[in-house]
């Protein structure tokens, strides 16, 4: 291997990439448990689809647009690495192979559009979703990753000096405001505010949030791109802020609604993970506790905004990811110690308002750009192929209509009796079996 290569760093980043990959299925179950029974599979497949579609786009041109040589003023990379050509197996990015770095960043590109799906759960036409993530990934995520993560060329990272260690603006705020734009385009679910739309499986939600939490160590610590002290700081801060945010959310909930809920615990953890993502390399562990408590309570309050303003963000992507991501990014401007991944000090550490201003520019730039483009793309798709399923399909169940499947077999009483009768009978299917399950052999 060439000079500067580190086996330890490479092993760490590859494992981190695998951890981040697991977050997308984790997210699928986090969201999947929160929707109603009839849209569980649609939710799962929308997330899993991001793994397929974005991976191919990433290889074709996504990596090149995000991390290729700058093409235009820090706004976007060029296409010279199309198809990941011209990247040698032993070519390094820092101390790790370019392919390891590209794989790690791929997982970020996958989960970001997947996050959006929660805002439009229960009513989205699958093919419209596939088209949307193809376009949004290309026009929004790849350039924004270039702005934020390309520290040598990206305009936010290199010119403005906005800090975002693992993607508070590029991933969470970006996805959160796109979710807001889309749920405005699609409109409210049938029965919003009237029918109960309770989560169908809180155990799935807990499982999903647990997988997210686990994978998030790869997301945040892995963003150090080396197995070093910075990764250690990011790791410990991730754990601390998440724990504090869970406490913050639960405390808010108890004060406001009288009960500690499981969904609140899971949501608080995710809010904490979101909030610490941009900040994990810049804060002290004590600062992370403060960030977690603030973000946890803030997001618990923010999820009620949809009822106040009347937009139907099905699974609170705006309240958790847009608000949590923006809060985490802005809190860097207050809590950055200057001893972690950047010498920039926040307001509370004597750094004045300078860094806070830079953070605000990052939040505004990414938020506005993502919102506008997502809204335009949403409208475009809605006017052409339609973004939303028909009301009839929505009420009857999107899984059956869009995917010809259902998540759980609740109609088993009659069917199992028929199948049992067939199994016992040596004379072939019984008469009563007609119209139930034609493919079962006697």
């Amino acid at each position, binding site marked *: 291997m060439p000079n500067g290569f580190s086996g330890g760093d490479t092993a760490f980043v590859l494992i981190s990439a695998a951890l981040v990959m697991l977050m997308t299925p984790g997210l699928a179950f986090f969201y999947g448990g929160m929707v109603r029974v009839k849209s569980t599979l649609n939710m799962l497949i929308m997330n899993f689809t991001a793994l397929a579609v974005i991976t191919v786009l990433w290889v074709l041109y996504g990596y090149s647009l995000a991390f290729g040589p700058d093409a235009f003023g820090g706004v976007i990379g060029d296409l010279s690495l199309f198809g990941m050509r011209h990247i040698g197996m032993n070519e390094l990015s820092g101390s790790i192979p370019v392919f390891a770095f590209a794989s790690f960043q791929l997982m970020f590109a996958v989960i970001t559009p997947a996050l959006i799906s929660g805002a439009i759960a229960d009513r989205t036409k699958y093919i419209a979703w596939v088209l949307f993530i193809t376009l949004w990934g290309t026009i929004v995520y790849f350039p924004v990753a270039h702005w934020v993560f390309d520290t040598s060329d990206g305009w936010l990272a290199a010119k403005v000096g906005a800090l975002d260690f693992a993607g508070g603006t590029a991933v969470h705020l970006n996805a959160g405001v796109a979710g807001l734009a889309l749920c405005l385009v699609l409109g409210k679910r049938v029965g919003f505010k009237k029918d*109960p739309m*309770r989560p169908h499986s809180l155990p799935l939600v807990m499982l999903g949030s647990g997988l997210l939490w686990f994978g998030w160590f790869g997301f945040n610590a892995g963003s150090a791109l080396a197995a070093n002290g910075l990764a250690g700081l990011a790791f410990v801060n991730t754990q601390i802020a998440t724990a504090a945010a869970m406490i913050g959310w639960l405390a808010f*909930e108890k004060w*406001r609604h009288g*009960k500690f*809920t499981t969904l*609140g615990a899971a949501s608080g953890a995710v809010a904490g993970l979101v909030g610490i993502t941009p900040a994990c390399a810049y804060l002290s562990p004590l600062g992370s506790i403060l960030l977690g408590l603030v973000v946890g309570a803030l997001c*618990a309050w923010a*999820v009620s905004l949809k009822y106040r303003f009347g937009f139907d963000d099905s699974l609170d992507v705006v*309240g958790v990811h847009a608000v949590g991501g923006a809060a985490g990014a802005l809190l860097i401007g207050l809590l950055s110690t200057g001893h972690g991944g950047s010498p920039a000090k926040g307001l509370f550490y004597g750094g004045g308002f300078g860094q806070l201003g830079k953070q605000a520019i990052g939040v505004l730039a990414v938020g506005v750009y993502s919102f506008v483009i997502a809204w335009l793309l949403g409208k475009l798709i809605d006017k052409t192929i339609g973004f939303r399923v028909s009301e009839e399909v929505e009420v009857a169940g999107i899984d059956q209509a869009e995917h010809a499947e259902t998540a759980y077999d609740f109609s088993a009483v009659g069917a199992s009796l028929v199948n049992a009768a067939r199994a016992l009978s040596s004379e072939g299917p019984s008469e009563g079996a007609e119209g139930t399950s034609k493919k079962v052999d006697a």
Partner: protein
Amino acid sequence: MRLITAVVKPYRLDDVKAALQAYGVHGLTVTEASGYGRQRGHTEVYRGAEYTVDLVPKARIEVLVEDEDAEEVIDVVVKAARTGKIGDGKVWSVPVDSVVRVRTGERGPDAL
């Protein structure tokens, strides 16, 4: 003959069953049911959004008895099911024209 139907709190089911057995009722049918009475249902909170759940889980017990036993059986059920709190349920009886035991073809009181 009369059909006595009782809709009671699920956790009282075992007591009702035991009381009916002690009284001498030979068989009964139990179904999971849901519904509400004057007290309506309960409230659940998800991320701060409150949902009123109208239909609360109930156990529905059905017993066939001879006419002269009906009032006493109703008393037995009521006594066993009562907690004194709202949502204890209802018991009612209706006349039954005919009953047949499927295995033997016996009819009427013999089939009970």
